[in-house]
């Protein structure tokens, strides 16, 4: 039997009833004899419950696990516990020293990203100083990897539709720095970007899915670029018309032919349509 570590993706797929045979049978054989894999499955089950109580799973995704929980005598209690814990988590903000320590650690580890941060500050100044009319089209934070604002295309009739770019980032508990994608015109092109730690992988997949469920959207195109600071900038194109108002999850997967796709990061963002007057 292959004793390689089972991927998280396979564990999740098994619990959500989407792991095909014979991988399913292999995994069952594995966890019946391997305590570590079994414990990882139980841990993944709890994590999926957490995702459910936070509204991150569609009803269709949740249904298989819901049924198996229903069949366990402690299922309802476990789910109630997940809901209570989620409420406590949402009320408990990290203490100041911990936030400070985390911030300092992040700063130390990301010194290479200082140019991008300076670019971000410049963009904030840009947004604060320019009059509303002039910046209407550029309210989405934009970055081309060099920290400079990026609004491509001109809003002249007959010219190619402008591309609105949003660089996504992790959203903190206080949601004070949410990723907001403001769309002015349905013909706009949208580029959603995210930065990853440098990796030798040469291919990535991206999906965008509404938080409240629905089918995942695949991008029109995916570009990737190594930045000077050694990170990879993943950029996925969408048509503005395909994104309605609401909350979405942008997920990047490593697409490696030799391994199952592995989820690398997932960021939330909010789409707001603000038509030009």
């Amino acid at each position, binding site marked *: 039997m292959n004793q390689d570590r089972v991927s998280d993706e396979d564990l999740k797929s098994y619990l959500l009833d989407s792991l095909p045979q014979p991988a399913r049978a292999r995994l069952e054989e594995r966890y019946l004899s391997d305590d570590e894999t079994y414990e990882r499955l139980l841990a993944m089950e709890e994590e999926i419950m957490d995702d459910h109580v936070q509204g*991150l799973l569609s009803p269709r995704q949740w249904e298989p696990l819901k049924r198996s929980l229903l069949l366990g005598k402690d299922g309802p209690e476990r789910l109630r516990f997940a809901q209570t814990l989620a409420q406590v988590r949402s009320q408990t903000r990290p203490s100041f020293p911990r936030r400070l320590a985390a911030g300092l650690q992040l700063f130390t580890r990301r010194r290479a990203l200082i140019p991008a941060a300076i670019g971000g500050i410049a963009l904030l100044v840009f947004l604060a100083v320019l009059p509303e009319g002039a910046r209407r089209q550029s309210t989405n934070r934009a970055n081309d990897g060099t920290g400079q604002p990026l609004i491509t295309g001109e809003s002249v009739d007959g010219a190619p539709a402008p591309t609105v770019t949003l660089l996504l980032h992790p959203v903190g508990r206080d949601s004070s720095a949410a990723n907001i994608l403001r769309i002015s015109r349905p013909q706009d092109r949208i580029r959603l970007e995210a930065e990853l730690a440098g990796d030798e992988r040469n291919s990535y997949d991206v999906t965008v899915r509404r938080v409240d469920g629905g089918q995942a959207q695949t991008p029109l195109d995916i570009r990737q670029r190594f930045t000077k600071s050694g990170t990879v900038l993943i950029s996925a194109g969408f048509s503005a018309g395909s994104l309605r108002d609401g909350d979405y999850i942008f997920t990047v997967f490593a697409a490696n032919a030799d391994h199952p796709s592995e989820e690398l990061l997932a960021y939330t963002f909010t789409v707001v349509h603000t038509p030009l007057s």
Partner: protein
Amino acid sequence: MTKKAFDDFLHLLHGDPIHAGREYENIRRKLTSFFRWNRCRDAEHLADETIDRVIRRSQELKVDNIHAYINGVARNVFLEARRHSARFTFDNSIDPSSWDVSSEEEEEYILEFRMQCLKSCLESLTPVERRLLLDYGPLHKGLERRKELAESLGITVENLRVQVFRARKKLRALVAERLQRHGKS
């Protein structure tokens, strides 16, 4: 099943009776999960049926790899249950939509009580366990955040979820005990 057959089975699991007893419970838990994850209605009953068959058969033939053998028997029990009796498997006679925490009509004060109870039990955990439970967020909030949490606790990201699970299990047991004491479970 005779006592000798059961003792022989325990011996197959481990030479030491205490370890063997633990392993027996472990196998039963895993089998129950196996049937539950395959959406069998009476998962515990099917787990016991599997173990009974393994014990009986292990008296008749030499079993080299007990875990592989249990897996094979469990699969047969599952297929039989599915084929011969729909009542064993999930047949939609239970309406899952009638059971959902989000629609539960639990009194407000009980929910509040559970929250207070959980918060209070959190204080009984170690600082590391507390941090694991409160700071481990969903993946959409960033893989980086998990990496930072794992690094700051000196564990790997791969191990993080399991550590959170262990802390959670401990907290759940504390909360259940307290709720039971107050008759609100």
